[in-house]
């Protein structure tokens, strides 16, 4: 097709694509601009001067909500979810490639995890942890063990919420690993083995370096999906909320550009993560290209 001259349909489709990109980014750019509203400015245009007033208001805290604590929690949880997603998806990908009994069941579970509505997953995890709490309380009264007496709830950021996030990030990670391993040439591993490398050596010196760009991609999915996750977290979090949950609450109560400032900040964090992930991938590919296939 590439030797044909550009047709009218190309220009129509290109225009459609441009409109789509505008539709995709336009609204976000609008709140980015409006977050620099002057102190007198409101939620809509026009801009009443340009200032960082709303950012400093945000810095001081939004009402009763400790937004920075929530921000920190989401950041830490995102990093933990990212690390676990990369590790678990990578090793599961290796296992799937070799094949094992029950692999179909595990694959079905992963797909189910994607397509079961988030609210149902969240509700289930919430119920599960209530049952666990009841169990611990019953155990506490039955045994009288002092360390169980003050048990509040097992629900929390790194238990129920992390689990809820993993049900969302892991399927994506696994699907990416499938796509990656389907294109991975086993000859590299065989060569390493022929040269006397052990299984672990093959993994660390051959497989991981070759797959590194894809693993960065999995990490990107792991972090961003967790950092922005809301529906699955909603019923599976203890007393302390994550940032998206606080944000959702603020949409009904905050009527100043402060919420746009918060939006700009959250988007900036995502943007930094996305940019660094993409740069890492580019850098890895460049380095590989520079070293060349022969010197590998």
């Amino acid at each position: 097709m590439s030797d044909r001259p550009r047709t009218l349909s190309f220009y129509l489709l290109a225009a459609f694509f441009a409109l789509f990109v505008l539709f995709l980014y336009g609204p976000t750019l609008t709140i980015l601009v409006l977050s620099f509203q002057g102190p007198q400015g409101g939620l809509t245009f026009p801009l009443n001067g340009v200032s960082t007033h709303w950012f400093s208001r945000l810095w001081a805290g939004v009402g009763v909500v400790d937004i920075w604590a929530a921000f920190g929690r989401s950041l830490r949880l995102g990093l933990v979810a990212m690390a676990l997603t990369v590790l678990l998806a990578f090793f599961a990908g290796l296992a799937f490639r070799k094949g094992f009994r029950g692999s179909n069941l595990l694959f079905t579970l992963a797909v189910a995890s994607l397509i079961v509505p988030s609210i149902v997953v969240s509700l289930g995890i919430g119920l599960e942890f209530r049952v666990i709490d009841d169990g611990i309380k019953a155990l506490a009264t039955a045994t009288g063990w002092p360390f169980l007496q003050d048990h509040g709830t097992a629900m929390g950021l790194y238990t129920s919420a992390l689990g809820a996030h993993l049900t969302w990030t892991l399927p994506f990670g696994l699907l990416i690993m499938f796509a990656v391993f389907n294109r991975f040439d086993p000859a590299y591993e065989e060569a390493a083995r022929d040269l006397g490398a052990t299984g672990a050596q093959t993994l660390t010196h051959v497989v991981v370096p070759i797959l590194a760009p894809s693993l960065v991609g999995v990490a990107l999915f792991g972090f961003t999906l967790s950092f922005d996750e809301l529906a699955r977290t909603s019923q599976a979090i203890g007393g302390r909320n994550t940032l998206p949950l606080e944000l959702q609450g603020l949409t009904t109560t905050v009527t100043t550009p402060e919420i746009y400032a918060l939006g700009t900040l959250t988007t900036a964090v995502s943007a930094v993560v996305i940019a660094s992930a993409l740069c890492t991938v580019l850098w890895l590919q460049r380095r590989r290209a520079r070293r060349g296939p022969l010197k590998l």
Partner: protein
Amino acid sequence: MTEIVLPAPALAADKPRTSLNAGERRRRRLTYLQAAPMALVFLIFLAIPLLLTLMVSFWEYNEYEIVPAFTLQNYRDVFEGCLNGSDLCTTVRTYLSTLKFCALTWVCTLLIGFTVAYFLAFHVRSRTTQTVLFLICTIPFWTSNVIRMISWIPLLGRNGLVNDTLQSLGLTKSPIEGLLYSNFSVTLAFVHLYTVFMIVPIFNSMARIDRALIEASYDAGATGWQTLANVVIPLCKPGIAIGSIFVVTLVMGDFVTVGVMGGQQIASVGKVIQVQMSYLQFPAAAANAMVLLGAVMLMILGLTRIIDLRREL
């Protein structure tokens, strides 16, 4: 000669076989070990919670506590008033409302997603440009959904950009109410958020289509539209199905978008569950969740019949 030689290979074959068996067993154990962590996560945070929800949906409850005694009352409550009377019951009305969003979103995301994917796959010639444009489509997916929802406020609000523009152009005299916090804004937000779920799988399907097939179609005298209808679309069916599954399940279970973009005024199945959870009516919420799950599974069943998801990667 043979009598002497024969045992030797047999022995030689025997020895490696036992060590191979040990090695093979070790490798198998290793494989299980590699898959175990993920299996454990899905067991603890998906399988058990779902079974527990199913179980609790049959339990009794009152204002104070949940009673582990079997009852079908929760399911009767879900469908209360559905069998008698000519008016639609609450549940059916809620499902119809959600299904309406589902259908609207599905049609819009499919049309937009297909067009965008088609442009990327068949009209962008350089591989690098293709990757960059594809990334441009996916980057918003990695940013916050709530932020992307509230970013419509300055555009659709009563004094928003759309109303201002319309008025200054003299097209409308007073601001149009109901751009924001309406069925329209909810659908718009769904399309805004979920079109990417259509683009990626459809693009993936299109990228695998052998370009020779397109050439053959043209050589055989087919027009562009005929090629699209008889070659491209049939070969994109798996991608369309995967995208549809995503969109359908995301919209069916949604309560955040309907909440934020509907100004907390529009009912959805997910929202019913969320409200019941907040009143600690767990068995009722569980019964609703099971009905929702059943409805979603029924909708997906048809789609999954068509495709083998694993082969598509």
